[in-house]
């Protein structure tokens, strides 16, 4: 049955309307969970607020479980889902650069949009930086074009990489998530003891 648009069940013309609606839902959840505050987000690195980890892991786990079940029921064809292709070395470099940018900026692109919506100047500067960064990347693209396309492993899934079924991957992920929830909860209690003022 699904995915609906690639299967032609929903005509292409609705694509942008749906994009807008999905975006609204996404933005609402992000803002309501507190992702519009950079100090909330970076709390995950200093142990005083693990909201990012909680939201992120819960979302990934729920979506993963849902996708596997939907595939089983025949509601969605996992073969037609866009699986992000893996480009090993550029992805490693990119992720490290993003990690530094994350701590410095305190946002990621999606959350910065919601932060702009509630009037954060730092988020506007962040998005400006994002714009500039992508511009710089495209300008200097010829210098690392070869690197950009290196290490192509195709649309490989986690299960395929480790040689196990993706159902098992999901279970492992859930277990890791639950353990992480518990540990971070303990850490947070401890760190918070020393922080009397906590207000965002």
């Amino acid at each position, binding site marked *: 049955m699904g995915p609906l648009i*690639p299967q032609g069940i929903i005509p292409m013309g609705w694509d942008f309307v749906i994009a807008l609606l999905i975006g609204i839902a996404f933005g609402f959840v992000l803002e309501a969970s507190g992702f519009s505050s950079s100090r909330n987000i970076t709390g995950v690195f200093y142990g005083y*607020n693990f*909201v990012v980890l909680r939201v992120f892991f819960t979302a990934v786990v*729920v979506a993963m479980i*849902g996708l596997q*079940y*939907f595939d*089983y*029921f*025949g*509601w969605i064809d996992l*073969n*037609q*889902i*866009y*699986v*992000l*292709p893996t480009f090993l070395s550029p992805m490693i470099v990119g992720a490290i650069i993003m990690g530094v940018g994350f701590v410095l900026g305190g946002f990621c*692109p999606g959350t910065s949009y919601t932060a702009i919506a509630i009037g954060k100047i730092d988020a506007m500067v962040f998005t400006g930086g994002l714009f500039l960064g992508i511009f710089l990347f495209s300008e200097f693209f010829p210098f690392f074009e070869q690197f950009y396309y290196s290490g192509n492993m*195709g*649309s490989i899934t986690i299960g395929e990489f480790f040689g196990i079924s993706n159902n098992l991957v999901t279970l492992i992920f859930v277990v890791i998530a639950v353990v992480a929830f518990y540990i971070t*909860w303990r850490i*947070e*209690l401890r760190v918070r003891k020393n922080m009397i003022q906590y207000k965002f």
Partner: protein
Amino acid sequence: MHVHELNPKKTMVTMIIFVIVIIIGLVTLSKPRLNYAITPEETVMLAGSEEGFFYPYELEDILNKTIDTIVLVDIRNTFQFGRGHIPGAENISAVELISKENIKRLEALKDAGQVVLIYGNNLVEANGPYMLLRQIGFDNVKVLMGGYSYYNVWKDKLGDSYSDDSYFIGNAQYDYAEVAKGSSVSNNDNDTPEPKANVAVERKKKNKAVEGGC
């Protein structure tokens, strides 16, 4: 713990809705009445072998009743069956072949060690039903080469058809390259480029959505 984390009731409610959706999925998951007994790979093997093919001259034994372990099934429609059929054949048209009763009957025959020999007007007509029955586990099903039309020609001298081989199909009757010289060549304004002879083995293309999704 944050004040907003003290009350996870809403989380529970959404989670339970999610679980209910999954339970609905499990319950409504329709179980197919029939299941494949062999894999696609085995089906390919089956298509490559002639093990399930029954030669017309072998029919003589059935008609002489020297063999009684074979049940003849005519899969053409009743009209065609009425106009003429192999003696002793029963008529189950292809459409009804997998109805509940017929599946039961086929199972009974299989358990009794009987071979079910199906035929249509020709081999190709019976090929689909034959392959399907094989795939859902009836490995006692065979198909008559040449079909009824061949039988009709040779019915008085079935034994002699042993030396005839016109019921063998699947062979090239011409030297195509010679007869149709040029047809494999894009001789005039072919604007589409000639594709490669063999599609290269590529990685599973999951989707062709836009790159750099984020």
